[in-house]
């Protein structure tokens, strides 16, 4: 289909899985973090906010190299995992997942922090007065009112994870079905001057991404929070 071979489909499935997991994990991590960041103004918070953005400033392969060392068998994290009888994380799906999460963190944390900042305390107070407990409030009020921030966070994370290959190349080792994601595959094709394949995959990726984003943005209902 679309002139794609099994290797392509494998990479597509893998990419989709990586993006989905990364986005979900990031939203789970970033939401409480962003909430905490937006709920006060101490120097610690400002520092954490700055630290979150730091992975961005390193060239991806260099970040990948540092992660390779940290997550590999001789690194602090990989070594600790091996010590308790687990596998280290280099050259594994879990490893590139960790890397993607780390690398895309600012794209999730920053828009969410901003969305929470803009929320104000009134909606939460209103929901409390109507008998909604903390979780209920989060689901029924905070989430829908900051939906825009979540959409930005999720789409930036998702799109960026699709395209990122520097970190993944270094840390993942292009193992088919495990760490050879679509971006790595396209890169390989392009480097091998295999342009037909590269163009075909790129085009497919663009079309897919376009429709996904179109749907997501199109479905996001808008309401003016400022009206409250």
């Amino acid at each position: 289909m679309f002139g794609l071979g099994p290797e392509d489909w494998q990479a597509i499935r893998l990419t989709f899985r990586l993006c989905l997991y990364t986005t979900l994990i990031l939203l789970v991590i970033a939401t409480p973090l962003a909430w905490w960041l937006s709920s006060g103004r101490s120097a610690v918070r400002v520092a954490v906010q700055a630290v979150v953005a730091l992975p961005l400033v390193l060239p991806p392969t260099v970040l990948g190299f540092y992660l390779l060392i940290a997550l590999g068998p001789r690194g602090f994290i990989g070594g600790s995992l091996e010590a308790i009888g687990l596998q280290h994380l280099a050259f594994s799906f879990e490893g590139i997942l960790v890397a993607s999460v780390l690398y895309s963190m600012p794209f999730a944390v920053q828009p969410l922090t901003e969305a929470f900042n803009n929320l104000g305390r009134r909606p939460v107070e209103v929901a409390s007065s109507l008998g909604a407990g903390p979780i209920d409030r989060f689901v029924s009020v905070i989430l829908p009112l900051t939906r825009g921030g979540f959409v930005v966070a999720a789409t930036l994370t998702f799109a960026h994870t699709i395209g990122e290959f520097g970190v993944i190349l270094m840390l993942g080792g292009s193992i088919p079905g495990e760490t050879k994601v679509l971006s790595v595959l396209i890169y390989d094709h392009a480097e091998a001057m295999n342009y037909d394949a590269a163009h075909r995959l790129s085009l497919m990726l663009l079309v897919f991404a376009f429709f996904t984003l179109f749907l997501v943005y199109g479905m996001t209902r808008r309401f003016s929070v400022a009206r409250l």
Partner: protein
Amino acid sequence: MSLSIQAQVRRGGFTLDVAMELPLEGVTALFGRSGCGKTTLLRVIAGLERASGASVRFGREVWQQQRRFVPLHRRRIGLVFQEHSLLPHLSARENLLYGYTRTAPALRRLHLQEVSDMLEIGGLLGRSIDQLSGGERQRISLGRALLSSPQLLLLDEPLSALDAQTKREIMPYLSRLGSEAGVPIIMVTHAADEVERLADRVVFMREGAIQQIESLRDALARADSPLFADEGAASVLLGSLSPPERGGLRRFGVEGATLWVPQAGAMLATGATRLRIPARDVVLALNDPQHTSIQNHLRVTIERIDYSEQERCLVATRTLDDQLLLAEVTPWAVRHLQLQPGMQVYALIKSVTLIQVG
């Protein structure tokens, strides 16, 4: 059963410092000038302003004391905020039902249909929030608080954006809620007519402190009451109202001290009730004048004459059934009629000025 609050809250140069006990029944009006701390007090009661060292007790429930702090969502308080606070992502109906669906079915006392009828918001239910006018939003807020079937209602100027007719339709409803349904209401208002018609007692605030807590009757009777800076003092007579007699008029009070009250639509219920009589509507006469349109001639005894205001005198009198009746007259009239304590005079009251307040 009472609500007792003890709190100190500091906000920049402003300090709220209150220690008070309010009976948990009927409607309590919170009255005071802009910026005196009314909203802050309501927020303390609701637990939104978490003053350290404060204590708030609601009947037998301890809401806040030392370490103990019951969060707002467990207090079952219905709150109407001063500024509009509808949730913008929900429709009018969803806003109304937000608290309702979160109330255990056994505790639900009110339902969408009756509340939306009462507030005349039936036609708005499908709308989104930004398709509503200011007054419509305010009514939805009120309805939403009512539908959460709270055990205490805190209303911060809940009727300020409403026209007189809508207010008149809502007020009896609130009043019944306060008395019959047993949901105590604490309500901030600047409108004297709302206090008059709704309140059982008035809490006067001033610069962050409670100045006085008075029953409505006492509050009305004071010549210098800040309540009626515009309208002056008034008295409230207790009595019972007969069914219509004599040309639709109804008898109020005891023999020898009977007032004739017009029917005035559905507003007047037969039975024990209260009538408000503005002091300035009471005419004093040395003898019983005939041939005037004034129907109500009561024999009263002057008790005290109060010259506190420059050009008005407040004459306190006793009716035959020993109730207080105030008359506001000019100093000229006092001199002209040579009024003095102990004197027996006639108090003339026009029927059309009588308002039932409870």
